[in-house]
């Protein structure tokens, strides 16, 4: 039986006919939309490489059935930059060497954006490490990742303050 769903992906509405309900959001993004920035690491919710924002919240897209998320608003790594202008979290990962091989990086960046929105960690590196513990980095770039998150969060706060001033 076919199922029709529609999603908003990086600001654009997309309609899908699913001939198999087993498709995860991760596989839909990668195989149907060819948005391969979202990575399939463990495919079991343990590594965080597949992290995306769904309705503004970070989740593991490997453990989310697409069919159950009909109507959802999805943001992936491909939806962050405006032309050549990187998102502050992307720029900060480069500035602070927040990666080595880069495989976990899209998930790290999407998770960091979700974490900053959640506003639970503040500027405490220990809380940031805890709030980012769902994203593994086999290269061990954690020191740079925490620095990048701290830096980007500070810049985003300044931008928000300028906008509201």
């Amino acid at each position, binding site marked *: 039986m076919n199922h029709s769903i529609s999603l908003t992906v990086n600001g654009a509405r997309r309609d899908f006919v699913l001939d198999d309900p087993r498709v995860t959001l991760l596989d839909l993004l990668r195989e149907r939309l060819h948005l391969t920035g979202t990575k399939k690491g463990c495919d079991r919710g343990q590594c965080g490489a597949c992290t995306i924002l769904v309705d503004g919240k970070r989740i593991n897209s490997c453990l989310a059935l697409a*069919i159950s998320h009909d109507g959802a608003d999805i943001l992936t790594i491909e939806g962050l930059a405006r032309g050549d202008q990187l998102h502050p979290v992307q720029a900060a990962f480069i500035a602070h060497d927040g990666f080595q091989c880069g495989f976990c990086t899209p998930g790290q960046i999407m998770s960091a954006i979700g974490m900053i929105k*959640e506003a639970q960690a503040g500027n405490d590196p220990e809380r940031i490490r805890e709030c980012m513990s*769902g994203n593994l980095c086999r290269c061990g770039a954690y020191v740079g990742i925490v620095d990048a998150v701290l830096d980007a969060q500070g810049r985003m706060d300044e931008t928000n303050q300028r906008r509201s001033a």
Partner: protein
Amino acid sequence: MKQFDYVRPATITEAVAAAAQPGAVFLAAGTNLLDLMKGGVSRPDRLVDVTHLDGLDGIETLADGSLRIGALVSNADLAHDAEFARSYPAVAEALLSGASAQLRNAATVGGNLLQRTRCAYFYDTASRCNKRTPGSGCDAREGENRSHAVLGWSESCIATHPSDFCVPLVALDAIVEIEGRGGRREIALDELHRLPGDAPERDTVLEPGDLIVAVRLPPAARGFAAHARYLKVRERTSYAFAVVSAASALRIENGRIAEARLGLGGVAAKPWRARAAEDALKGVAPTADAFQEAARRALEGAKPSGDNAFKIELARRIVVRALTLAAAGTPARIPALPASPFASTSGAIHA
């Protein structure tokens, strides 16, 4: 993953009817179920998606002072609800010590209660497991079993229930509201999960079609807010299941314990309520001696199910430390490393 039918009922009644069919299971966030299906551990014929049902995602205070939590409230939304965290701090701390931020954003209250054991032999379809395949045997019994149960286990199954959330909930007398084929009923959370006995394939007392619609905390649960903690020993500091955990809650009046609550995690197939320990603490001063006596009583009857005798002594020490931390007072803010014995702001006190 085995092929399945997908249905999205419009009402709770439709959901119950759809899930009562053989081979049908409910789908909430799916953070555990999809993992099990990918591994071939769960092989449902039909998924009944309850995530679009109305009225199951609210947190409300009832007229009698109870708190009613809808089954679809996410673990993160509940833990980050400021009023909830103030009133039931050990529950919020337990929630934040579980899984990762991504999983907590997706995972639901009802799903957390019904998650399956993380016993490696249950997950490995090449192994014998009475919980997965009734009557096949238990490879954990003679296998890698240092993380397995020390209370309430049987020769047929030594698995533990992995939830953190359930541990303070059971200590606080949480009630589970269930919609079933016979209508609405409610049971104590303590009665939801079954000990394995000779039927470990049945994790809970739920019947086919039964849907958990809410979890309720009775009015008395608020009375412990000033002295309530969750403490959890893990193999790594974050994003790991409990080796042993304890939820402790005290009501202290005039320097004496008017009432104590104690739950243990990681020790049995259900969240373990330690009532004998609670009784020992009633009316006494919150001293190290009293806490050690409570710990001794909490683990009475415990026995190793394999290479896990250490968990019995570890659990005693975690009980003493959790009670000591609770007596010292609930911290104004949940520590940076929730429930961790290594948390720098927990006022770490060694047992």
